[in-house]
């Protein structure tokens, strides 16, 4: 019974913390650029503003356009439910493994792309086709990263992988995971519309990928989509922690004290990861669109290298 309580609490925690993480990244970016930063809770203010507005819909918008924000948001919440960010005691995660997770992200992508094309504006379809191009290159790379981790840990379920690492008496360094880790960061950047693949803060409609798809959305629909994209970034960060830095995550049957410690650990990890993301984004320029495939091919190759290192060297 407590497992289900933790399951629900973890989802709620992810939903609540995701905007904070986005706010933190935004704040770090501002500091690194010598700007005065918006408050940490700026994303919550954005959500409140958007939820208070009346939604405007394009006259040609179909049910798909209205449905998509809810689908995308719920997909991200379900994804959060199977990622062991705080505890491995997740009943849902036993049902759906990491490959299902990739499927969940793909579902969200399909819905948002269809919705973008639904209203028939040039920008919507332009963003959708770019998103699909990035997606079909990022997905195999992500799967390769996961396969490296599966082989190293001997399971496809994220909680079991975490438990496998934490059960060991001492820390084992896997060179294969190092390759996979770099590949994972590259996929994270591409999948979350961050620099150098996409620019989350641009106002130039012709260069947009993610933003172009949601240009026609307003009010609560836009709020859900923004929230979903913050959740996606949060989820990706937590997948990264589970695969490569699982220390601090509470194990099956841990007490309240350990769970509190686990929350503190994930907050600390997010703080460092957010700052690192902001630093990387500040230093890089946006890639020319047709360099993005090269970037993702590199991620794929690194993940394959990780796999080979494991298979050939057994490390």
């Amino acid at each position, binding site marked *: 019974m407590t497992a289900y309580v933790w399951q629900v609490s973890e989802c709620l925690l992810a939903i609540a913390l995701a905007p904070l993480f986005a706010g933190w990244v935004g704040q770090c*970016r501002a500091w*690194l*650029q*010598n*700007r005065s930063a918006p408050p940490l809770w700026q994303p919550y203010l954005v959500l409140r503003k958007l939820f208070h507005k009346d939604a405007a819909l394009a006259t040609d918008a179909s049910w798909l356009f209205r449905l998509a924000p809810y689908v995308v948001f719920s997909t991200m919440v379900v994804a959060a439910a199977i990622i062991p960010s705080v505890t491995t005691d997740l009943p849902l995660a036993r049902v759906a493994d990491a490959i299902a997770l990739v499927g969940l992200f793909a579902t969200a992508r399909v819905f948002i792309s269809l919705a973008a094309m639904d209203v028939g504006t*040039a*920008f919507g379809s*332009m963003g959708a086709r770019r998103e699909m191009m990035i997606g079909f290159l990022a997905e195999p790379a992500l799967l390769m990263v996961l396969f490296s981790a599966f082989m190293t840990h001997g399971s496809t379920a994220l909680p079991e992988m975490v438990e496998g690492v934490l059960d060991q008496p001492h820390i084992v360094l896997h060179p294969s995971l190092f390759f996979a880790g770099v590949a994972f960061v590259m996929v994270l950047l591409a999948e979350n519309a961050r*620099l*150098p693949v996409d*620019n989350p*803060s*641009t*106002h*130039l*409609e*012709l*260069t*947009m990928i993610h933003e172009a798809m949601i*240009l026609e959305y307003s009010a609560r629909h836009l709020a859900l989509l923004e929230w979903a994209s913050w959740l996606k970034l949060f989820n990706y960060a937590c997948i990264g922690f589970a695969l490569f830095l699982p220390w601090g995550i509470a194990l099956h049957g841990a007490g309240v004290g350990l769970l509190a410690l686990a929350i503190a650990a994930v907050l600390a990890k997010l703080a460092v990861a957010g700052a690192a993301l902001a630093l990387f984004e*500040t230093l*890089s*320029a*946006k*890639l*020319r*669109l*047709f*360099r993005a495939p090269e970037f993702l091919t590199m991620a794929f190759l690194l993940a394959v290298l990780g796999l080979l290192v494991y298979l050939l060297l057994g490390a």
Partner: protein
Amino acid sequence: MNLDYLPQAALQLPANVPAQQVVVNAAQWSHSALRLRDHGAVLLSLWGADDRDRDGRFRVYAAFLLPQQVVVLEHSPTGGAAGYPSLTHWFPVADRLQRALYDLLGMEADIGDTRPWLRHDGWPEHGFPLRRDAAAAEPQPQPGRPYPFVAVTGDGVHEIAVGPVHAGTIEPGHFRFSVVGEKVLRLETRFGYAHKGIAKRFEGQLLHDGHRLAARVSGDSTVAYAWAYCAALESITATVVPPRAAALRALALERERLANHLGDLGALGNDAGLAFGLVQFSSLKEQLLRLNRQVFGQRYLFDWVLPGGVATDIDAPAVRALLDEASMLEQRVAGLRAIYENHAGVQDRFRDTGVLSTALAKAHGALGLVARAAGVAGDLRVDMPWPPYEQLRPRLVLAAGGDVAARARLRFDDIVESLRLCRALLETLPPGPSLASVPAAAPYRLGLGLVEGWRGPVMIALETAPDDRVRRCHAHDPSWQNWPLIEYAIIGNIVPDFPLINKSFNLAYSGIDG
């Protein structure tokens, strides 16, 4: 200066640069244009006037930029007719100018594109606002008329329509891309959304007040326009501007150039995804604008240049502050330039993007910054220096390549040269008054003012009326020449690179919409 090859004798034209006027008939009009082109002229501007109240005729004027002087052809069709021979055959840039001339005055070129240019929906089909007998009544809303863009057909070709309302807060313009996938096959631009009727508003203004309206043709070139207007008026009235005033005007013009280049370099970095560049350059630009406010009382120097001189003088502490700022800027910009030029990501975006070849720039008569970045020499300050530039001897800044990187490099070099000029001006600021009185002007006189603004040569053609009033005032922005070139520079590039290319040109919307 020899114009023997023209069919009629040239008359001296009041202007701040060497300028001559040639009155020709219809046959001579085309012939002269051809001869001028053979002698290396580019078409600078084309405008018309309704003089039916004086002598029953329309007049059309074409200003040509020769290597060391300006030639204005004047032609008045006989019998009050409003047609004239087209110049598009020799000067492609004439196309949009001729369309605008028709929309404003109903003067029609014999051949060429007949689609409206300025005349958008809501403008009566046969209402020509610059005609003397134009009804003063408010135009009634008209039903929308389709504007046929040139269609590109083929397998997988589709159009992307952008603007006039954009996702960011920028000026209105419509861009119609024909693309295959992400590759641009053709771009067609449409403007006129910012038409304010400035030429009509000029009519009947007091000559001594007109500089205020001229300063508002294009806000980012306010000094250039105000100076061009003042130069035209001062030439007509034979006013001698005190040396101190001339030096201060040049200082203001160079500071306008600096402010715009700093802003553009930041925006170029931002469009390549390097927000760091935007923040750094914006802070430098803001410091410059604040010092402007402190020293000149105006951040963007609106209305600081006025007929006869400048509005306020500057004192010794201000000179020191400006000199200190010049050293600071030189150092900071050099540092940022090193970052831009060593940043692999930025250089990858800049290089070979939006290439404008030297041959194309020459053939289409590109002007100003865009031309110089394509290796085409041309700078009024160098070619036909007027006071105080004849003493300053500015260096001609050129870049090769014609891509976004070249236009960025040119801006960096321009900043260095502008700072050198500012320093020279401040160190040798002549004593004396900074304002002279401008006598009353004789009526029905035409005068020109040409100033090298930060985009390129800005021209004002001013005609006087009795009682010290403006009869006709035509303002020309170099963006007229350079907008069509962006349509060439984008061909073969990918759609998401367009904002970067567009920013590297950074052409005026308000300046050409009039």
